């Protein structure tokens, strides 16, 4: 997928995450954005490009939401680290494994963001 298309998708996600999703589906704010980051990492299989893109997008999201620098970038890197570890012990190739690792990455992202927010 082209980078500009990913950027447009990210902007759309960040927009509807704050306005439409919490109102219509009762999602917690930033829920969809975190899923987007996890899917981005999984899609690029935690390549250098995917990591740089994810870092840039999470940096933008921090700026957009007025968060401390690192509140989203560090959890993103933590979930990327989780993917690395899973890749090391399991053969993450099949669809089921990708979904499971995605869920684990999401939980790691979520919990780390809470931890980082407390530290920062």
């Amino acid at each position, binding site marked *: 997928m082209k980078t500009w298309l990913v950027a447009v998708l990210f902007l759309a996600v960040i927009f509807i995450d704050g306005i439409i999703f919490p109102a219509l589906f009762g999602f917690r704010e930033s829920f969809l954005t975190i899923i987007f980051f996890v899917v981005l990492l999984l899609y690029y299989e935690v390549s250098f*490009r995917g990591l740089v893109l994810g870092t840039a997008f999470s940096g933008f999201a921090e700026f957009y939401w007025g968060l401390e620098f690192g509140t989203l970038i560090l959890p993103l890197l933590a979930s990327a680290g989780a993917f690395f570890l899973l890749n090391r012990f399991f053969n993450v190739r099949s669809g089921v494994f990708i979904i499971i690792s995605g869920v684990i990455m999401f939980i790691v992202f979520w919990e780390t963001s809470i931890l980082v927010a407390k530290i920062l």
Partner: protein
Amino acid sequence: MAKLSFKAFFIFLAIIVGAVFLNKYIAKEELIFYPKSLINLGSYLFTKSENFSGNDKLKRNQELVFSLQAKIDNLENENDFLRRTARISQRFNYPIVYAGIFNINLTPNGYNVLLNKGVQDGISESDVVITAEGVLVGKIQKVMENFSRVLFISDPQFKITAKVINSGTTGIVRGALGEGLYLDFIVQEDEIKEEDMLISTGSDLFPPALVVGSVDYIETNATKMFKKVRIRPAIKDTQLSRVLVIKIK
């Protein structure tokens, strides 16, 4: 797609953690990664888009209108009061102070009201309080720095010499709490009938021609020297928000 090695990942992680550490503890959150001008621009744009519908401006205008309405209402009231008092203030040779009543205490022990004027406005004890229509309210009992207590006309301690209009019948009016007032020392031969108006005589410390009340009930008993005359205070039929204080001293 170029695979990311563990080493590259940890270098990347170290850079980010280092940057966060630098921002948090060395640059002391000066936001070197997000320049302040950019943050301010973002904040400005966000605020602009929030206020796009003009809701805030409308709310501010509405508050201003309410404030002006309140001011106009207050000025109208004051103007009306001053117009009504213009004639009555000319009747007295004493200086007059305009005051407002902010509390009325009707307790079984006595009736009194509180005025929003005190020593700093020149009020002193025994000054007389009347309405814009010339109806007697009471007299100043105690004066504080910026407020004073008025002994209400219906209080048992309150006494004034009064006479029936267009008649020579004179007596002493005293307060009787919930019963209103009583006119004492009216002998059986004195001319007095129900609905007669009573005004102050001016023979005591009160100015003359202040409206006291109207005769409500007369009990005649030939075996007694005096009639029992109950008076309905005129103050019952008037508004008590703004009053005049006649400075006797």
